[in-house]
């Protein structure tokens, strides 16, 4: 009798365990996926965030192990931001090693020509073509530990028509320099000096500029992080709104 009771209890326990299993296994799945279980919900945001991470992928598809930001994904998002009246500001988060020059310049021009306030934060690194993207916004921040590598543009792969390609690359580099100079406070001479400096980088000419130095050179507007960037974008939004009210009156 007692034995039977014991068995029954065991069965009940097993049933209970089975009931609990789906819940716990989904939890385990979530932890395996991202190391997080649940996240808080909040009301709709009037500030959107564009993260530019990994390599800027342009005309050539990069191998799958590379983390990339594809410009064909980002460009429609920027148009959507411009069109959506609920979105009042844009924060661009940069942690990129650089990438396709034309794709990077396309992104930079898109960001620079958006009518809504844009603020960028350079976290970790904003190298090569990340520099024009960082300066394309209305106001740029860099965290003290972030670095930006400024170096001449390069080309890998087969080259047909060397003199023509050289001239084309030279013009392309000039476009990058002009964009950075016209969208930041850095002087052209200083930017070129950093770009062609010798002895700083192991396998290349150029300079690796750290957070505060980038601000000192006038490349980036201010040293700061998320707090400063959100404050700045909200300030721009307020200014925009008061400006619009003034026009109506």
């Amino acid at each position, binding site marked *: 009798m007692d034995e039977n009771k014991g068995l029954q209890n065991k069965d009940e326990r097993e049933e209970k365990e089975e009931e609990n299993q789906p819940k716990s296994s989904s939890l385990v799945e*979530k932890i395996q*996926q*991202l190391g997080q279980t*649940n996240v808080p919900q909040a009301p709709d*945001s009037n500030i*959107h*965030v564009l993260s530019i991470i990994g390599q800027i992928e342009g005309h050539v*598809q990069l*191998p799958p192990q590379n983390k990339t930001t594809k410009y064909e*994904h980002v460009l429609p998002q920027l148009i959507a931001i411009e069109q959506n009246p609920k979105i009042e500001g844009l924060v661009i988060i940069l942690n990129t090693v650089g990438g396709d020059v034309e794709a990077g310049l396309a992104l930079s021009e898109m960001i620079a020509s958006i009518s809504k306030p844009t603020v960028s934060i350079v976290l970790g690194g904003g190298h090569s073509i990340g520099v024009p993207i960082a300066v394309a916004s209305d106001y740029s921040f860099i965290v003290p530990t972030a670095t930006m590598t400024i170096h001449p543009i390069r080309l890998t792969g087969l080259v047909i028509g060397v003199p023509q390609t050289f001239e084309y690359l030279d013009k392309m580099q000039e476009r990058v320099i002009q964009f950075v100079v016209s969208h930041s406070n850095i002087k052209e001479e200083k930017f070129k000096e950093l770009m062609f400096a010798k002895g700083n980088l192991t396998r290349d000419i150029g300079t690796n500029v750290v957070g505060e130095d980038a601000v000192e050179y006038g490349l980036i507007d201010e040293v700061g992080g998320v707090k400063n960037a959100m404050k700045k974008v909200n300030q721009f939004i307020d200014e925009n709104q008061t400006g619009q009210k003034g026009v109506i009156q």
Partner: protein
Amino acid sequence: MILYTPLSETDIFPTSEDTYNKRCCVTHNGKMLYVEETSSGSYELLQLLSTDPHDFMDATFNPGTTFKG
């Protein structure tokens, strides 16, 4: 084998076309997702393509989530 070259690893050992073909962009519940087809035929979420920070709060769009094909 030791290679002494300025070329990147993928220039010497190119990635097969299959790995590219397995990846695609899909729309699921109005969100743009970058997914990869797994060996079991389902799709694993690689990246959520959105600028709305709240979309990233939605646990159903965590990277690594699998969707039935």
